[in-house]
């Protein structure tokens, strides 16, 4: 795992050493924010997944034209271009119900209007709140909510009773709720 290596170093490794693991690390870092940006634009999970995939493949193919700066922002711009092109294509095919679409800017606006901003804000706040948790608590959340591990099994893994884990999880959840309510400010 190349967790601590900078983006520039990873890109150098991809370009000079043909190192696919370096690009994998870049993807792990930025695929979720890029996917969220694509979701904001496309308002459809399948389309957002397709746009994210195409954006990363294009970014890989044009990696030598990257001129520094925020790699995630660069891929997001590529994703936006691809997304707008797809929306335009859909519009030409008549798959978009909006009749008053005039330009790509309108398309982006429409995508934003129909997008549930509050839900995405909460999701983002949850992600950030989880990253701020101590590693042990983060692991419990990951096991239980992301990998679907039952509390009994978590208790066995950690050598604690199920009740202990329940109490711990309750406290973690309360902390997360507070963080989301306050927008991660405390």
């Amino acid at each position: 795992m190349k967790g601590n290596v900078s983006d520039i170093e990873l890109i150098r490794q991809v370009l000079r050493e043909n190192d696919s693991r370096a690009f994998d690390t870049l993807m792990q870092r930025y695929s979720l924010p890029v996917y969220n940006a694509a979701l904001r634009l496309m308002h459809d999970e399948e389309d957002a997944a397709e746009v994210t995939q195409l954006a990363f493949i294009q970014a890989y193919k044009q990696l030598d034209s990257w001129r520094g700066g925020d790699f995630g922002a660069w891929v997001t711009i590529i994703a936006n271009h691809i997304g707008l092109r797809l929306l335009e294509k859909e519009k030409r095919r008549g798959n978009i119900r909006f009749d008053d679409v005039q330009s790509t800017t309108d398309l982006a606006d429409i995508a934003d209007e129909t997008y549930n901003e509050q839900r995405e804000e909460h999701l983002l706040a949850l992600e950030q709140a989880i990253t701020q948790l101590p590693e042990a608590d983060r692991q419990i959340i990951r096991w239980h909510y992301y990998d679907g591990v039952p509390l009994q099994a978590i208790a066995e893994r950690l050598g604690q009773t199920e009740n202990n884990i329940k109490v711990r999880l309750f406290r973690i959840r309360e902390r997360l709720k507070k963080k989301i309510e306050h927008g991660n400010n405390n």
Partner: protein
Amino acid sequence: METITDYELDTLFQQSAQQHKAVEQINRQVMRTVRRDMRLKTLRKWTKLLGLCFGLPVAVVLYIYALFLFMPEMPEQLQTVCIAIPVATVLALAAQRLHYFSPEV
């Protein structure tokens, strides 16, 4: 100030887990494409190298052998052309190399 209920938190966890799964799937598919492309690049590089190491000497030897065979029967002007062509090709390739030369590669 808005409050988050237990139900809302559970829904958020569910949606977040779904997003993570979607993103993992995307990562896998992109990496498959990237790895295939990298394998092709490596293959092209080795093919080029083999072509340069073996193909080029074979071509030069064949050309010289052909010259050796047919040169005595050729008129003088054609002989000059036959020698000038490879010399010009080598010079053009060298000039091209110098033009695109980059100390970083």
